[in-house]
């Protein structure tokens, strides 16, 4: 033991988390799937030759080609094409990039807002804490999808139509983020309440460390575990919320479809036998959300010492 250099890699290898990870097949499989999806989505230009967002590159005569393994399928369109002649695989990957960007940004937005408010509320207490916590209570009574629809509706009213298509993605991020922050606020406040009475905080206070530094340098690292867990599960929720909003037609425009928009567009062809247009995006969404949730579950089990 002592001979080994304490390198970064060795620290990771010797940690509980790594041990628990290699002992959990679900965690390994879901991580593998997620890495694959992330890679394909973010480097989609190198993965597929098609660009479904460029209408001039499409040929309408390719429309409604079934998946390649069926009778009328073509080898160049593995998962078939949609009603505009877009390659389904490329469209799904481009679409999942939008879904992932929206999901990540929304969670980060909710995390920064929620942790900031929750941490400070727990630390300072008093009237400030009461106001913040009542705010989360109010927010939690409104279903997040309704909240997101409301934000989108207001944004449509304020922003001009030409701008709206460009702004749609930011509106979505804000709408989903604003509906998820109370989770983060509550968890971080509860954890802060436990931490702030510990000796290391008292010691810091006595030697005159400023409140800001105590909160973010000393308390924050100690409450990160539960936040990471709900952050992971929140990511799956945000991706599904994005898909729901786009399915309802208030998300990103159909010319640059996300997964939800794709499912909505394909829905029109469900009865006519062109099942692949809605099936593949839907399956893709399920796999994506399921993998994130499994990873989140594993993380919760590992990071929560009370469960061990």
């Amino acid at each position, binding site marked *: 033991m002592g001979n080994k250099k304490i390198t970064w890699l060795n620290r990771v290898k010797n940690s509980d988390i790594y041990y628990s990870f290699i002992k959990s097949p679900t965690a390994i499989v879901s991580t593998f799937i997620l890495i694959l999806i992330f890679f394909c989505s973010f480097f989609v230009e190198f993965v597929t030759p098609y660009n479904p967002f460029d*209408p001039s590159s499409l040929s309408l*005569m390719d*429309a409604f080609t079934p998946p390649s393994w069926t009778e009328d399928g073509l080898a160049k369109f593995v998962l078939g094409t949609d009603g505009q002649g877009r390659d389904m695989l490329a469209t799904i990957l481009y679409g999942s990039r939008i879904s992932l960007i929206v999901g990540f940004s929304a969670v980060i937005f909710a995390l920064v807002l929620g942790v900031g408010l929750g941490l400070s509320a727990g630390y300072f207490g008093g009237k400030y804490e009461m106001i913040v916590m009542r705010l989360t209570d109010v927010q939690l009574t409104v279903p997040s999808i309704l909240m997101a629809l409301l934000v989108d509706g207001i944004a449509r009213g304020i922003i001009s139509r*030409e701008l709206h298509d460009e702004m749609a993605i930011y509106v979505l991020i804000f709408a989903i983020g604003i509906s998820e922050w109370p989770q983060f606020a509550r968890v971080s406040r509860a954890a802060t309440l436990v931490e702030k009475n510990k000796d290391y905080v008292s010691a810091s206070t006595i030697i005159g460390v400023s409140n800001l530094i105590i909160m973010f340098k000393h308390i924050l690292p100690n409450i990160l575990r539960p936040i990471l867990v709900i952050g992971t599960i929140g990511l799956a929720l945000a991706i599904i919320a994005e898909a729901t909003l786009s399915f309802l037609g208030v998300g990103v425009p159909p010319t640059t479809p996300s997964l939800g928009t794709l499912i909505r567009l394909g*829905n*029109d062809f*469900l*009865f*006519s036998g062109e099942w692949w247009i809605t099936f593949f995006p839907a399956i893709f969404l399920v796999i994506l959300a399921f993998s994130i949730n499994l990873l989140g579950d594993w993380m919760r089990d590992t990071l929560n010492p009370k469960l061990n």
Partner: protein
Amino acid sequence: MKFNNLLKILLAVLFVFASTQTFAKTIKWSMQGDSLTLDPHAQNEGPTTQVSRQVYEALVTRGLDMSIGPQLATKWKAVDPNTWYFYLRDDVKFSNGQKMTSEDVVFSILRAKQPTSDFKEYISTISGVKAIDDYTVQIKTSKPNPILLNQLSNIFIMSKKWCHDNFAIVPQNWDASQETFSAVNAMGTGPFKITLREPNTKTVFKKNGKWWGDMKDKSVTEIHLLPIKNAATRVAALLSGEIDLVTDAPVQDLARIGSSSGHKVESTPQMRTIFLGMDQAADKLRTGNTGDNPFKKQKVRQALYQAIDIEAIKKKVMRGLSEPAGIITFPGVTGYTAELDKRLPYDVGAAKKLLADAGYPNGFEVELRCPNDRYVNDEAICTAVVGMLGKIGVKVNLFAQTKSKHFKELKDNQGDFYMLGWGVPTLDSHYVFHYLYETGASWNKVNFSNADVDAAIRVMEGEVDLDKRNAAIANAWKIVRDNIAYLPLHHQVISWASKSNVDVPIRPNNEPLFRFSSIN
């Protein structure tokens, strides 16, 4: 004792159910959009007329075979080329019990000539109308009008007293979003009356007991109009039995509906042509990026025309159910010839060259406005057009919205490049020219203006010598076709899907006539 009571209750329940089953039959009708207004003179638009037609009647009407026949007038004669007499039925009552007389006819025709009426161009040749006696009306025209009867078949007769009582003397100003009593209520002489009106949700038509005519199937007592915008939902509702009749069955689902044992599908060429309009008058496109208006140049218009692969749209978007068009009118209309209806060839290379010759080698940017709940696969056609024009370097931004907004903003001159469809209820080319091509006409939103065409329109209105008139029509079509005033796409084919036991005769103008419907 208790058993007796129970028996009575059971019998009562049985009676109620039995009676509703045998005597009252409802046809639940669905399409993607709804009537825009119940005011019969405020909007000249397909579904609006389809709804009004169940409630209101005109002096003459088209029967199931689309030929003109009597309705409120039993006979008519022209004493000289400019003076017509119409003899009315004397047994007609409005659904509120009031008798219909020539006063109501005079009032309604004058109402349809008001500035807020969308039918004023329709009957612009009518210069005077007066009641001779209670059941005789005299109509004077400013010049001989060979298509007066065709035009009158769409002028619905309202009650003068009802309009006066309800502050509806002039038609609703639809363009200004005016709210009037007549826009949400209807009271006519037709076979049905409207008892519930929730725009875009539900409209209930009940049999008008005071109607003078005979229903084909007397057990049909109610029609419910339930618009369902989403195509898949509409089909699902039909297949699950929630809906009895869909008058715009989605082309992609016809095979699926036809294969269902309890349903049937009928198709017929529709009297409607879909086309794109390009504003040729504006100095600068509102949504362009070149600072000028490329559509002013005929070469640009032709380039766009030749860049559209109409056969691909027919095959993939319309699933074969459309007829590529060269002019905005269809077989059966006076003035139509197969020669005129030929399209310019699809040729991307030629289109690119034309665009370069016109001074736009790198193309330009423009917004295409589209309805998304009016024509068969309207939004999908527009999306396809965006891709095809992208191939010659024209970057088109698609803006699809619901039809009421689309039409309102078009009328408000907000469109550079837009989709529109045109039916010809009079079955005469004059109707198309009068609305779409005449200088300053109300739907001429491409601002096309040509003195020769305007002169030909005057000839169509006043010339009774059919040979001369037909020559004028042919000449006018040639001019607008050569000028590429519009970009014609295709003639629509409509398909109605219904339960097998519900019989509503399909008609090429897409108007169901529920008085001819039956349930077996």
